[in-house]
C-alpha cells in the first residue's frame, strides 16, 4: 500500500517535513495579512500608538475612506486602464506570439530573447522617452495625450506586450502544427484558423498573460505618478497621495489607509485565486517542449 501511495512529487517531502513547511509558510502569510486586516479596523489613535489589539473595532474606516481618499475613482481608473492594457496585450500578444511560433524566420531565437530582455529595462529609462514620444504626439496633433487613460494603458503595454508575446510563443510551440494545416484544409483562412482553432486551445496561456499584464498596472506607482493626470489617477496614486497627506500629521490615519489598501487589493487577489487553475495549466503548457 505504501508503494502505491508514494508515486509522486508530494512524497519527496517526508510527511513531518511537509507539515512543518506548510505550518511555517501559512503562519508567515496569516500573521502579516491578519495584522493588515486588524489594523484596518483599529481606531486611528490606537494604530498611531502601536496598539495591536484594538479596544473596539472601527469598521467605520471602511465607510469613511471613500470620502477621505480618491479610492473610488482610483479603483475605477485602474480597472479601465489595466483592463484595456491587458486586453490589448492579450490580443496583440496572441497574434505576435502565434506568428513567432509558426514562422521560423532568421533571428527568431534572438527576437524571442530580446522580448524577454525587455523585462530587464528599468521603468525609469523607458518612462522619459515615452513621455517625449507622447509630448511629441501632443504637440504634433494638438490632442491631449499625457494624463489620458490610453497614455497610461500604453505605458503598461510597454512591459506587458513583450512578456505576453514571448509567453504565448512558448505555449503555441506545444500546439501541433497539424491543427493549423487541418483548419486550412477545411477551408479556413490563416486568420480564421488562428481565431477558431488555436485561440480556444491556448486559453490557459491567455489567462496567464492577461493576469500578468493586469498586475503590471495595478501594482505600479512610478508610471502612474508621472503619466496619469488628475482625472485618471490610479488606485496606487490615490493611496500614495493619501499617505503623503498623513505624514507628519498629529494623528495619521493609518487605520483608514489600511482599510483602503485591503479594498484596493481585493480585486486582484480574487482575480488571482479565481484564475489559479488556468495559471498553473498555462505555465505547464508553456513548459512542454
Amino acid at each position: 500500500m505504501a508503494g502505491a501511495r508514494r508515486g509522486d512529487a508530494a512524497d519527496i517531502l517526508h510527511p513531518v517535513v511537509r507539515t512543518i513547511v506548510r505550518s511555517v509558510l501559512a503562519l508567515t502569510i496569516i500573521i502579516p495579512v491578519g495584522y493588515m486586516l486588524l489594523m484596518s479596523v483599529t481606531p486611528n489613535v490606537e494604530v498611531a500608538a502601536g496598539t495591536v489589539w484594538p479596544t473596539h473595532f472601527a469598521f467605520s474606516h471602511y465607510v469613511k475612506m471613500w470620502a477621505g481618499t480618491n479610492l473610488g475613482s482610483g479603483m475605477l481608473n485602474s480597472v479601465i486602464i489595466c483592463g484595456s492594457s491587458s486586453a490589448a496585450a492579450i490580443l496583440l500578444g496572441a497574434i505576435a506570439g502565434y506568428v513567432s511560433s509558426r514562422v521560423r524566420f532568421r533571428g527568431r531565437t534572438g527576437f524571442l530573447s530580446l522580448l524577454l530582455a525587455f523585462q530587464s529595462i528599468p521603468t525609469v529609462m523607458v518612462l522619459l522617452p515615452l513621455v517625449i514620444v507622447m509630448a511629441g504626439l501632443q504637440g504634433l496633433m494638438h490632442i491631449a495625450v499625457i494624463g489620458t487613460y490610453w497614455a497610461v494603458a500604453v505605458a503598461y503595454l510597454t512591459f506587458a506586450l513583450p512578456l505576453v508575446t514571448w509567453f504565448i510563443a512558448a505555449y503555441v510551440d506545444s500546439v501541433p502544427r497539424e491543427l493549423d494545416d487541418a483548419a486550412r484544409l477545411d477551408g479556413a483562412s490563416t486568420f480564421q484558423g488562428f481565431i477558431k482553432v488555436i485561440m480556444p486551445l491556448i486559453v490557459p496561456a491567455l489567462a496567464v498573460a492577461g493576469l500578468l499584464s493586469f498586475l503590471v498596472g495595478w501594482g505600479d506607482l512610478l508610471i502612474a505618478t508621472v503619466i496619469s493626470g488628475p482625472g485618471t489617477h490610479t488606485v496606487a496614486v490615490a493611496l500614495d497621495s493619501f499617505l503623503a497627506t498623513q505624514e507628519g500629521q498629529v494623528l495619521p490615519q493609518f487605520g483608514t489607509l489600511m482599510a483602503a489598501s485591503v479594498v484596493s487589493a481585493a480585486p486582484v487577489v480574487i482575480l488571482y485565486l479565481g484564475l489559479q487553475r488556468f495559471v498553473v495549466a498555462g505555465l505547464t503548457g508553456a513548459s512542454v517542449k
Partner: protein
Amino acid sequence: MPLPPKRRRDHADRVSSRTRRQRADGALFRRDLRPLVLMMIPAALVLIIIDLAPAIIGVINSFRLLAFSTLEHWFSAPWLGLRNYREALDGGGGLSVSGLSATWHSLEYSILTTLLALVVGVLAALSVSRRTSSATPVLRALYLVPTALPLFTSSYLWYSILLPKTGLLDVFRHAVGLGNTPNRFLVGGHSFAALVGVDLWLAWGFIYLFALAGLQSIPRELYEAAEIDGATRVQKFRYITYPGIRKLLAVGAVLSTFGHYNDFTLPYILFGAAPPTGVAVLPTTSYAAAYSIYNFGLADALAVIGVIAIIIPVIVYIRYVFSGKAA
C-alpha cells in the same frame, strides 16, 4: 469530400506533392507565410513604437546633456560623449551614491532574493502538489496571497510592521521582552536584510506557481519506477523532480530577478527618497537623478549600466540551463 473551391484545390495539390513528414518540419507552405506576416504587422508596429523606439531614445539620451531646460528640445540637446557614464560610475553630478555601488546592491539583492525564493517556492509546491488533506486546496490558495497583493499594498503593510517602536515587530519584541531598542530595519544597519526579507515574502509565490506547474508536467510513472528501484527521496528529487521543473523554474527565476532588479515601489515605500546606502538600488537612484535633480541623461546612463550588468549574467545562465549541461 465536396468539390473544393479553386484556392483549396491548389492547396490540396501541393499537399499531395509532398509527404506528410515534409509538411511537419517544413512548417507552413511558402504561400501561407503572407497572411501570417500581415497578421503580425500591427503587433510589430506597436512593439517598435512603444518598446524599441523608447529604448533606443533612452540609449541615445544617455550620451546627452538632458536637463530640465533642454528637455523641450531634446533632439537638439548637446552631446556629452561619455561624461554621463563617468559621472554615473563615480557618483558625481549630484548623485548620492555611485552607479557602481547602486548596481552592485541591486544585483546582490535581486539575485539573493531570487535564490531564496527558489528554495521556498519549490518547497511550497512540493508541500501541496497532491491533495493529502482537506487543507491542501486552502493552502494552495493561501500561498498565492502575498504575490497577489498589489506591490504598494504589501509595501505599506511591511512598512507599518517594521516601523520603529510602533510597528508590529517592535510592539511584539517589547511584549515578549526581547528588548526595547527600536529596530533598525527601515533606517539603518539592517535595511538590506529588511529589503531581502520583505521581497522574499512577496516574491516566493511567483516561483511557487512555476514550480507547481512544472510538477504537473512530470509523469507519475517516473516516480513509480523510481519507487520500485528503491530510490531515496533525495534521489527522486535529484533525478526526476529537478530535471522536470528545471526549465520552467529558470524562466520563473529570470523573470523574478528582473522584477526585483527593476522594482521601484518596494524600496521607495520602505526607505523613501533618501535610502540608507546599503539599499540605494538602481531604480531609486536613477529615479532621483531624473526627477529630483532633473538630469535625465545621467539617469539613462545609470539605466544602461544597469541593463548591461544584469543581462550578461542572465544570458550566461539561460545558455547554461537550456544547453542541457545542467541536467
